[in-house]
């Protein structure tokens, strides 16, 4: 790509466009997807690996991600762990909802301005409500 070295006029990026629901959901889809890919799958492997390795490993996993027992570092990471776990469940719900929206867009439906905006907002509303409902169920039962 020898030609691409010079500074070429580039298309307008994030700071130029007026924000709208579809743009926000598109960005969130990429952010949540990559968050799930790196943090989510990393945590999944830590969890299943610790579970396979025995009670002590599983205890260590829980200390670092949730309970914070056993020292200063665990207390700090356990707080972070709660933020990450709640964030990951929200990221899954958001990515799943906007993913379903993408599957519908793939068949050619939902491109009218008003319905496109409306369903974008619905994905955000769904992810927030589903996250609150899940953690309310987990923590209050």
């Amino acid at each position: 790509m020898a030609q691409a070295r010079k500074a070429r006029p580039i298309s307008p990026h994030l700071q130029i466009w007026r924000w709208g629901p579809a743009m926000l959901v598109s960005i969130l889809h990429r952010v949540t997807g990559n968050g799930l890919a790196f943090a989510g799958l990393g945590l999944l492997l830590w969890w299943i690996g610790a579970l396979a390795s025995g009670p002590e490993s599983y205890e260590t996993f829980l200390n670092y991600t949730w309970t914070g027992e056993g020292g200063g570092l665990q207390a700090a990471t356990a707080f972070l762990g709660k933020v990450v776990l709640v964030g990951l469940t929200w990221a899954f719900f958001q990515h799943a909802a906007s993913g379903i929206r993408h599957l519908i867009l793939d068949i050619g439906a939902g491109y009218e301005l008003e319905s496109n905006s409306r369903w974008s907002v619905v994905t955000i509303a769904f992810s927030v409500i589903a996250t609150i409902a899940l953690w309310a169920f987990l923590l209050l039962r």
Partner: protein
Amino acid sequence: MGNGTSLGRVRGLGSSHQGTHHWLTSRLTAVGNLVLITFLIVSLALLPDYAYATVRGWVARPLPSIALILIMINTFTHARMGVQVMLEDYVHEEGTKIAAWLLVNIVPFVGAAFGILSVLRIALGGA
């Protein structure tokens, strides 16, 4: 290839004949993830507690262990494709492109292999 026009540089190379494979596979694995991760979240949420014996006992059962092995294959495939598209959009330097190419072609397979082995160790009752 020389530094010809954009058209000149690609003329004669032909189609790769795999234009839809990446797109279609990411959709198929997306539907798989909807089923598998929903199963995982609902199952974990319904566990009575998160003690070692409880969680390990759940993973060791046939349906959860099959689901978890499928999750290791399906999520890593889907994540690999999504991360690849993200890197294609943002990584433009030749050196970092090679590093990115190595990343998406090695790390997901290592991760999935580790995950599958862990599930098997639990399911087949090893230490």
